[in-house]
């Protein structure tokens, strides 16, 4: 990478990995980079307009990356939403009144994933309201430009690993004792305890 990255956020589109933001030497920076895994090449891309780390990233329609929330320093979690246009290499902030964020509690180290043509699920992390890990779950409707509550995680949790989809279910490896599972058609959360970790003799 061109810059050191820590406490950053990460997402992938096809054979590219996007690394967003960094926290170095007690300071947050908006540096962003993309890695071409086939060519083994890193390239700097536009910085975020509002530098922050621990944002919830979501690839949308294979050409956009949404960055929700995150922290701007060690004491402030913000409700900033930015979207990166890959083809234009531009970040744009989506601010009120363009978007209704009144029902949203932003977070640090939460996750996001596109679940329908127009909807992005946002969940978990450290709440901006309480500064505690929470079970909040929200849906950002990109067409209506509003965020609504959508149930809640079974257990409050923050995440440092990106989620994945398999057989209509979204799975996220929690920082707690669970893998969190969301049935996309049924819109229900459940958990799988990690307690059954198998240690192979290798």
């Amino acid at each position: 990478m061109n810059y050191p990255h820590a406490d950053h956020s990460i997402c992938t589109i096809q054979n590219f990995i996007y690394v967003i933001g960094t926290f170095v030497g007690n300071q947050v920076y908006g540096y962003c980079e993309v890695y071409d895994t086939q060519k083994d090449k890193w390239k700097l891309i536009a910085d975020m307009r509002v530098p922050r780390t621990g944002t919830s990233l979501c690839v949308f329609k294979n050409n956009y990356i949404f960055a929700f929330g995150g922290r701007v320093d060690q004491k402030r979690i913000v409700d900033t939403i930015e979207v990166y246009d890959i083809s234009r290499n531009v970040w744009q902030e989506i601010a009120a009144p363009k978007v209704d964020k009144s029902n949203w509690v932003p977070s640090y180290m939460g996750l996001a994933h596109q679940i329908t043509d127009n909807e992005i699920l946002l969940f978990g992390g450290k709440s901006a309201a309480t500064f505690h890990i929470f079970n909040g779950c929200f849906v950002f409707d990109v067409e209506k430009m509003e965020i609504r509550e959508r149930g809640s995680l079974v257990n409050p949790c923050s995440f440092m690993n990106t989620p994945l989809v398999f057989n209509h279910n979204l799975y996220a490896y929690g920082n707690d004792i669970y893998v969190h599972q969301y049935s996309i058609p049924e819109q229900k959360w459940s958990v799988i305890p990690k307690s059954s970790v198998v240690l192979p003799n290798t």
Partner: protein
Amino acid sequence: MAQQRGAEELIETLKHYQTIFIDLDAEYEKYFNDYEKMSKLQRLLDKDTNDIVRDFTDVIERNLRVDYNTKSSFGPQLPQRLHSFQWNQKCVQLYRLKTGLFEKKQVQMTYDVPLYSRSIATETGTIYLTGGYVKHMGVYLKNCYRYDDLFGILN
């Protein structure tokens, strides 16, 4: 082989829809019982048409969504697994989605998995670990490591 897998996926999808229909049927049964009494039926007749349509749409949307994006993150030939590297340790935890089994594996790398590092699996299933902070050296990393599943090496 591919055809068989496609057929199996179709069966899974149809089973899933069947479950939705059964649940939906139970939901309507519940409402039907609610309206058995004439007084309740009268109340329904008095209800604003727009409210009825909105409630009905809401029930349908909640129970019979067809617009969801269920494309799996990895292709069918690839290992379907969640992973998590443990900070300040030399190990990775894997959760295999098809079998439901957890595994904890040792990882070979120069130092422990750096604090505040992040990792991701691309759609080919390859796992990469990026950046982080090596506390005992006081160094923030520019490094990116590819995880070699077979030998358990981050290099």
